[in-house]
């Protein structure tokens, strides 16, 4: 269960304060597939980042399974992400110095899992990249990089998968493939999936759609 209570995020922009999120409250149930949409600058990515504890809100509280994320230290946040959250970025963010296979293993190694290797192999099979494991990110296409990022996001069996425009840098064919992969894994593992997207077509396939405008929730509808 993800709960956001009166979340605001204000940043300093030059001499002025810029409100990115303005008193947002919402809750997302376990296993739910939610799409967050809105124009550029509406606060979608910031909201996702706050849920993952990548940044702290200016005010309000965020709770995951009852634990208040906003009060956690950097290290506690890190272990929260390690245990419960998977994240997929628009620009993949694979570690360039590691091979695809090693990128997938990293979250499991951080947790100290013993079967990291076998599990990483399975995950690579799941995303259909068994033969590309020894390649470095720069040697992979955008679609392949994102499939590796998804395999990495699922590595620790997260309860929550947060995806920030995962198809934004891909052509439509690759984009559809990535979307199918995520929803498939969501169904198989009963993962809470929060997807930030510009693509209305993808958003329509979610169970619930939250629209943001100027940092506020414009609508929150079940599809």
């Amino acid at each position: 269960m993800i709960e956001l209570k009166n979340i605001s995020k204000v940043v300093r922009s030059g001499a002025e304060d810029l409100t990115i999120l303005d008193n947002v409250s919402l809750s997302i149930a376990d296993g739910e597939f939610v799409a967050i949409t809105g124009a550029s600058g509406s606060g979608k990515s910031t909201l996702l980042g706050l849920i993952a504890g990548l940044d702290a809100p200016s005010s309000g509280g965020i709770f995951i399974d009852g634990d208040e994320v906003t009060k956690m230290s950097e290290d506690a946040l890190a272990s929260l992400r390690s245990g419960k959250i998977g994240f997929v970025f628009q620009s993949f963010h694979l570690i360039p110095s590691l091979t695809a296979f090693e990128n997938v293993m990293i979250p499991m190694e951080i947790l100290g899992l013993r079967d990291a290797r076998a599990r990483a192999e399975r995950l690579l099979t799941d995303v259909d990249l068994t033969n590309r494991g020894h390649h470095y990110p720069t040697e992979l296409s955008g679609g392949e990089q994102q499939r590796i990022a998804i395999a990495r996001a699922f590595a620790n069996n997260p309860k929550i998968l947060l995806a920030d425009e995962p198809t934004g840098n891909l052509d439509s064919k690759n984009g559809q493939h990535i979307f199918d992969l995520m929803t498939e894994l969501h169904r198989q593992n009963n993962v809470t999936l929060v997807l930030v997207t510009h693509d209305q077509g993808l958003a329509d396939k979610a169970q619930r759609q939250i629209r943001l405008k100027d940092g506020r929730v414009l609508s929150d509808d079940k599809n």
Partner: protein
Amino acid sequence: MSFIFNLTFREIRSSWRRLLFFFLCIAIGVGSVVALRSLIQNLSQAVGGDTRALMTADFQISSTSDFSPTDIQKIEEIVGKSTIVEARNEAITSAAMARPVDETSETLSFVELKGIEPPFPLVGEFTTSDGKPFDFKLLENGGAVVSPLLLDDLKVKIGDRIKISDGTFEIRATFSEEPGGASGFRLGPRVFIEKKAFDSAGITTSGGRVRRLILYRTSDNPTELVKSLRDNLKGSTLTVQSYRETQENLGEQFTRTENYLSLTGLLILVLGGVGVWNVARVFVEQKRRSVAVLKCLGASGTRIIAVYLLQILTLGLLGSFFGIFLAQCFLWFTKYRFADALPASLAYTVNLSVAWQGILLGVLISLLFSALPLLQVRNIKPRLLLHDASGEKMRRLDLPRAVIGAVSIVGLLALAAWQAGSLKVGAFFLVGLGLTSLFLYVAAVVLTKILRNARNFGSFSIAQAVNSLYRPGNQTRIILLAVGLGAFVVLAVQSLQANLVREFDFTRNQTLPSLFIVDIQKSQIDELARILEEKTGEAAQTLPTVRARIAYVNGQPIDYQNRETRQQQGQIGREFAVTYRANLDKNETVLDGEWWTEDADVPRVSIEEEMANRLKVAVGDSLTFDISGRKITAQIANVRKLDLRNTRTAFIFVFAPGVLEKAPQTFAANVIKKLPETERQRLQRNLIDRFPNVQIFDVADIVEAFQKLVNNFVLAISFVGSFVILSGMLILIGSIALTKSQRIYENAILKTLGARRLTLTSILFAEYGLLGILAGVIGAVFATALSFAVSKYIFEIEWQFDFGLTLLGILVTAVLVTIVGALASFDVLFRKPLATLRSQ
């Protein structure tokens, strides 16, 4: 934990090229420390390690005059009571001139003559060149065993006969290693003859510099016996010395040298540290995104720091090992290049303890210099993956940063103190280095500021090159500091050398004599003067010399039990050549007291400034001299300063007339006229044939030896200086590698905008050319200042600005930086712009 190890391994695997500079910086630094320390320790081992063999005895009693019957009696009495004395022998040493019997040969050589008696040696080994143990029979009936060098000098071979003074000797063998052979400065090759042949050759009677030795081998530590002998012989001119004291003195000197050399090594290592700091700083900057990803995936800041720390440790360790390998290569090179000039028993391997020290130093320097940059990892937030936070402000007051900074400085101080063997010297070193770096850095800042204006005047390439030097994340000042420091060291040494060599240039300095003749008997002086005048056309300058030793200072015998005094025994206890005259020489100035103008009732003496300081005496004090057993007490009338540059003679003690005229004396004469080498040799040979007992010093040889010494010294420092330059170059290459992506991007844009490869190449050359010129100018300015200060205030010699050298220094630096810089960035020119621009 496995996460930390796995990631460390993977990071090294993928980033090793970028970190190669880190590795090399440490390797060069550790290599310098280990090489210098090993060399000096091995040298200490070879020269001083077996001082017993060096002395060829456990203790010795030496005298510059015959042992008096009273002295012998006292010695026998004390030694006779001792139960530890196992064996005894006597020896006589003296410098002499040797020449082949063959009259047609014009060769002549100084030799260090040693008359020995069996059993010899009491301690140590003595083998001849053919590998057989030395047999005393080789010396019997006019035999000589000589250093192979003499065969070359005199162009003779085994079986030939040579003349030394009035004696004739047959060369029966040469030796590969003589007992006590490694000791310092030699006037000429060693020649062994029978002790009794010394007398028959007339060497002992001619008043030359003869040293008589009684040597003893003991079964146990001779310290007590030596002390008792010294107590009983107090006031006499005899010197008692045990091998242990020699060892102690030598050991101290070597330790001091080793510590100073280690500081030089540490300087290179600290420069390596600057390289490490630079690499670590930019490395962390480049890894920001990866760190953010790792944090996003759940790794804590501490674990990520642990990964990078482990990486640094691994590289520091590997770099240190490679450094030890480099040190070994250096020692092999030393053997290959300098083995002839170094003791034969010198080992050319890295010492194990020094190697461990080097590893520890390498790892510590790696940690100390990368700790601060690594700490930045803490401040990298995972949110930068959502929006770049590079513009975020750092916290001003960062306690851990301040603490780590302080720890680094204290750590560095501890390392410097450890290497210098003294906290004070270590602190001076660090402060000195800090100040020098500060000055160089300020100079770099000022010069780059000035240069910034230059872009408005130059061509497109120059303007772009200047812009490149101000590229965000540029390393310009660090490079200027590092390369400038290297240029500074090398140029300063070269400039000093030029001034020193100029000062002692035999052909320029008209006041130096060309030949110096000593030990001329009273009966020989007139004839010798006549010959000199006939051959050179100038009136010979002759002056009387009397050999004297200091017996008492203000009525008190010199206390050699006192450690400090004993260390100066060589300077105080030796036999001095003193003279007497009415006038002050041209090269002398009276510092205190007055030069004698009229007769006085008491004997008066003038003392040279440094000796006065050494003896802690002043005008009015009394000195008692032992002159051939007679004691003469004189009052110090004045203290003189000698200008050694214009010296014809350099007497430490000069007596007023009326005291020494009756004392046994010899004469010295000098030839001022500059004679061509062949004429000089012929004249020397003529004189020695006529007066075999005299000794002739060819000043040209001495000057040549001095120049050789200066050159070797300069070679050694320049060698170290070139390491400093090398460190600078590594920092340069490292910086280029670190800012390469920006350079590639800039080039891609310029290419898109229509810049041709030639234009880009000229920008590249202009950039590094400018950088090199700036570094060269900084180095040259500071080198000139240092060379001036050292010449003027330390060496007290005339200083001249060497324009050619300075220009050459700047040029070489500029060319070096341009070549290294261009080579390291050349591939940038060949990248296709589209791929670069798309990846941004």
